[in-house]
């Protein structure tokens, strides 16, 4: 039964995907990373160009296929036919035509392309733009809001209809920052600060992922981008700026102790409790956990954030995320339970 419904889903999503492809992104089914996107001004410009080129490509492909079909099925003979083919070796007009016609089509593609390049790579942005510093690590995303004193991991919130300016930093190797729904990707290159500037125009939760191969867990380097309403963003900022919640339950209180005493605190910041320390800088650090409980996902956004997944992750990070830098601490039983309870309480 289960497999049948799964198969239905396969077929259903497949057909839908085909329709999406055919109708250039007008479909409305579950494909959170689809690239015919219109979640921001950037995405709309790209999509518009994407559609134009797809149409030109389709026209040319159709012409080639029609000519090929005509050549094979209509304007040729088969083996055994007594007539010898004509020795037609060249035709200046024809050859000029198929040199000039593609050149014209290319002009129709190149001009909007260059205009879109200039539009999508502004060298200036308004002073009230919200700057988000994106730090790529092997294999998770850190988001800092320099003006707002917020740091978060795996999940980034931005308000709708404001200019958002992403600055891309890498501490280790080359990654690529990609949120299809809001526009294209940019590589995150160590020693170089790349930018993406966009104005989100739709609220919702969008999926992002590292797009440049970055080693063992490249596939497990995802993130979520939440576009809030202006009020929603204000509330989120206030909540994130607040100090961490005091643990109430006994289990969570015990968990706080474990967190402080176990190596967790070396790499993970919980404001007021622990801080990533330069002294123990091994070249990598873990996400800021001050408001960990408020996030939807964990471990590079590969799991939903719930106690069961968190316990599984802490127990053996390497097993569920190959190459993960977080060590196995050998916590089990009540210790593990209490630590999970504490972390989940950090709303």
């Amino acid at each position, binding site marked *: 039964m289960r497999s049948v419904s799964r198969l239905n889903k396969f077929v259903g999503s497949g057909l839908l995907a085909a329709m999406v492809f055919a109708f250039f992104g007008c479909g409305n089914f579950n494909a959170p990373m689809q690239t015919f996107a219109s979640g921001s001004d950037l995405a709309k410009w790209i999509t518009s160009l994407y559609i134009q080129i797809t149409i030109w490509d389709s026209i040319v492909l159709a012409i080639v296929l029609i000519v090929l079909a005509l050549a094979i099925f209509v304007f040729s003979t088969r083996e055994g036919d007594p007539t010898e083919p004509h020795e037609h070796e060249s035709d200046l007009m024809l050859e000029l035509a198929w040199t000039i016609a593609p050149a014209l089509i290319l002009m129709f593609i190149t001009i909007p392309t260059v205009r879109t390049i200039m539009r999508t790579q502004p060298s200036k942005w308004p002073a009230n733009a919200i700057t988000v510093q994106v*730090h790529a690590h092997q294999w998770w995303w850190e988001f800092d809001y320099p003006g707002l004193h917020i740091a978060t991991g795996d999940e980034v919130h931005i308000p709708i209809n404001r200019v958002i300016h992403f600055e891309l930093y890498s501490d280790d190797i080359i990654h690529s920052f990609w949120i299809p729904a809001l526009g294209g990707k940019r590589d995150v290159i160590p*020693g170089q600060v790349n930018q993406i500037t966009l104005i989100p125009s739709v609220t919702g939760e969008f999926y992002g992922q590292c797009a440049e191969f970055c080693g063992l867990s490249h596939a497990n380097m995802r993130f979520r981008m939440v576009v809030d309403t202006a009020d929603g963003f204000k509330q989120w900022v206030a909540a994130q700026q607040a100090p961490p919640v005091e643990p109430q339950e006994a289990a969570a209180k015990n968990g706080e102790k474990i967190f402080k005493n176990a190596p967790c605190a070396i790499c993970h910041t919980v404001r007021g409790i622990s801080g990533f320390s330069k002294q123990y800088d091994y070249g990598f650090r873990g996400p800021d956990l001050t408001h960990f409980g408020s996030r939807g996902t964990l471990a590079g956004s590969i799991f939903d954030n719930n106690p069961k997944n968190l316990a599984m992750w802490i127990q053996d990070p390497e097993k569920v995320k190959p190459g993960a830098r977080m060590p196995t601490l050998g916590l089990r039983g009540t210790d593990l339970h209490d630590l999970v309870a504490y972390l989940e309480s950090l709303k």
Partner: protein
Amino acid sequence: MSDHALNPAHAGHDVSHEDHPGPGLYLLIAAILTVLTAAEITVFYVPGLQPVLVPILLVLAIVKFAFVGMFYMHLYYDSKVFTTLFVFPLLLALLIVFGLLLLFSHLQGVLSFVVP
């Protein structure tokens, strides 16, 4: 000696170096190269010439390059095929050098060596 070599009669059988010049010309070229190199070094040391250092040095280097290529490597006398075989890659090499310099000079603006 130079008379002897400037007269190609003895090299009659080989089309590929039948027209090669003799030691006289080689010595002349060597003298020119020496003078040019001396000029290069002089330019380097004269403080007043610093503003025009780059163009002068580039021109001198190109002239030396051309002299060695044309006379010592016989491009001037040999088949033009060889010149083509060499000059085309040379132009491509120049394209690569200039392309990379331009691309990286843009990069210079977006670099941050301070890892945040």
